[in-house]
């Protein structure tokens, strides 16, 4: 049985936020008397993550996903509760812990802007105490996996966003961390670059059994990488479990598009008690609950003259989008 590598208990985080009324009066008032209030952005959350798991954090903007990642990697201190990551308290930032993790933020870069990425890689290698030969071996291995080669020797400022992101990944993974915290790693990348990055992360997880915590607004990242998701809503966890179960729960129906032989057949089908979504001439779309899909299909095939039929899963984006519209949907 795999052991827990991340253990979070009753974790909360509050920030002091200053507010200012609009206009000159508000500005003067703000100058003399600042009004600050404590905003609890993470509220008493608990979860565990096992070694080698890939977990996606889902939630609307400002739900608290990134704050959770920042606390897990030790970038910020929690206000209450406890966090253990591979047996360490992250915010103490012990060297052994730091050598075991990495944080990649899609909108932030650590590469030195005016130098080729190779310089940043060698610098990181020395920061993580890798000897030259080992550093070169890892750069070669990772650059092969990421399919970058000539880009290593071109100044970062001249690279495309996709090339830069790959280089960022290489810089962040040169010390072969066991735990990866990825905050929107595919932000701004084109579809091919996103796919390549996902493939790379899958391979990295398979090869090294690394644990990956991921936030992304691209649902494809979540669906192709994560079996488990943690949904964060206004600082609390609203769902923690299998992604497929969540999808089934959020979308208990499938849509069946039936092409009938004639318009009369379509009308007959429309009046036979199915929940009809829409109808055009001889085409009709019905909604069928997941648990009665087989019996419904048998009924249709036995009793109606049809030419063709398609079963459509509702788009994952649409389903997960329901999570992001806070409180509109009961998970």
């Amino acid at each position, binding site marked *: 049985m795999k052991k827990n590598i991340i253990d979070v208990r009753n974790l909360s985080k509050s920030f002091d936020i200053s507010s200012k009324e609009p206009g000159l009066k508000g500005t003067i008032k703000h100058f003399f008397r600042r009004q600050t209030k404590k905003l609890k952005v993470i509220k008493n959350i608990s979860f565990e993550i096992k070694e080698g798991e890939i977990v996606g954090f889902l939630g609307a903007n400002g739900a608290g996903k990134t704050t959770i990642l920042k606390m897990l990697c030790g970038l910020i201190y929690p206000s209450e509760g406890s966090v253990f990551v591979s047996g360490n308290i992250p915010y103490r930032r012990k060297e052994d812990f730091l050598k075991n993790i990495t944080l990649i933020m899609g909108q932030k870069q650590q590469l030195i802007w005016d130098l080729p990425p190779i310089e940043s890689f060698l610098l990181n290698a*020395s920061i993580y105490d890798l000897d030259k030969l080992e550093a070169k071996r890892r750069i070669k291995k990772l650059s092969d996996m990421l399919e970058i080669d000539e880009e290593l020797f071109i100044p970062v400022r001249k690279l495309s966003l996709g090339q830069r992101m790959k280089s960022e990944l290489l810089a962040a993974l040169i010390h072969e961390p066991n735990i990866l915290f990825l905050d929107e790693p595919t932000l701004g990348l084109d579809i091919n670059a996103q796919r390549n990055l996902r493939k790379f992360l899958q391979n990295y997880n398979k090869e090294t059994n690394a644990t990956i915590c991921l936030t992304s607004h691209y649902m494809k990242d979540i669906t192709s990488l994560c079996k488990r998701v943690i949904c964060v809503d206004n600082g609390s966890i609203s769902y923690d479990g299998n992604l497929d179960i969540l999808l089934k729960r959020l979308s208990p129906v499938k849509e069946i598009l039936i092409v009938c032989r004639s318009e009369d057949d379509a009308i007959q089908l429309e009046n036979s008690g199915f929940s009809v979504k829409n109808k055009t001439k001889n085409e009709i779309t019905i909604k069928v609950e997941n648990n009665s899909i087989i019996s419904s299909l048998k009924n249709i095939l036995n009793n109606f003259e049809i030419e063709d039929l398609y079963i459509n899963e509702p788009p994952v984006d649409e389903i997960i989008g329901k999570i992001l519209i806070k409180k509109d949907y009961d998970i």
Partner: protein
Amino acid sequence: MISNLINRKIFTLLKVQYSNMLEYRVEIALWAISGIIPFFMLNIWTNNNLNQSINISNIMLSRYFLCAFFVRQFSVVWVVFSFEEDTLLGKVSPYLIQPLNPFFRYFAQHIAEQITRFPFAFIISIFFFISNPESIWIPNLGILFLSIISTFLSFLIQFLIQSIVACLCFWTEKASSIERLLFIPTLFLSGLLAPVASFPGYVKSWIYLTPFPYLIDFPANLLSGNPTNIGRGFSMQILWILLLFPVFRKIWSAGTRKYTAMGS
């Protein structure tokens, strides 16, 4: 073994930062040229015969201001501005979760910049000697060595002071304003505008208790061959470093607890 690893980290940092600084060589040349305040001050002093009031010859005064220029070139610090920007934009976040204090990066940037500045400062001093041939002198090796050390200690004091101020941006966001406030005593009391010897006796006794005269005045006097108390100079430099370092450690530790990783 440990020292080897640290040396390798610092050496690689220096190498990388030096490559980076070479990308900005024109900018650094302009910075070097912009540091010629001491030469303007020399002009004001000699044209008004102010040197007579402190019993110093024109030649020794020229050498003092040339040395002040050199010391300033190799002890100028800007860490507060870099750190403030990196903190406010969240750029410091990736460095905070690496097993190396981010201030080592800034430290290496400064050293690399000084190395890049050297040829420009050297060329400026050649021009200075061409226009003031009577000021040419060659300091003996011992004095040169001590001057380099005192310049480095001066840089360390300024780096620590600015790092402490920089850490305040964990609380106040615009820590560089505090640094601008510190610039005033640095300008007047460090010896950049006038040798500290030119101040009245009772003022001098107070100034020598602050870190400012050990930033420019002491190393410049040492290198130029003007009379200075070497023992007191080095003792005060070391004392200030020993006082400032734990303050920096404390404020850094408290500041990182306050860090909210804004902008990331």
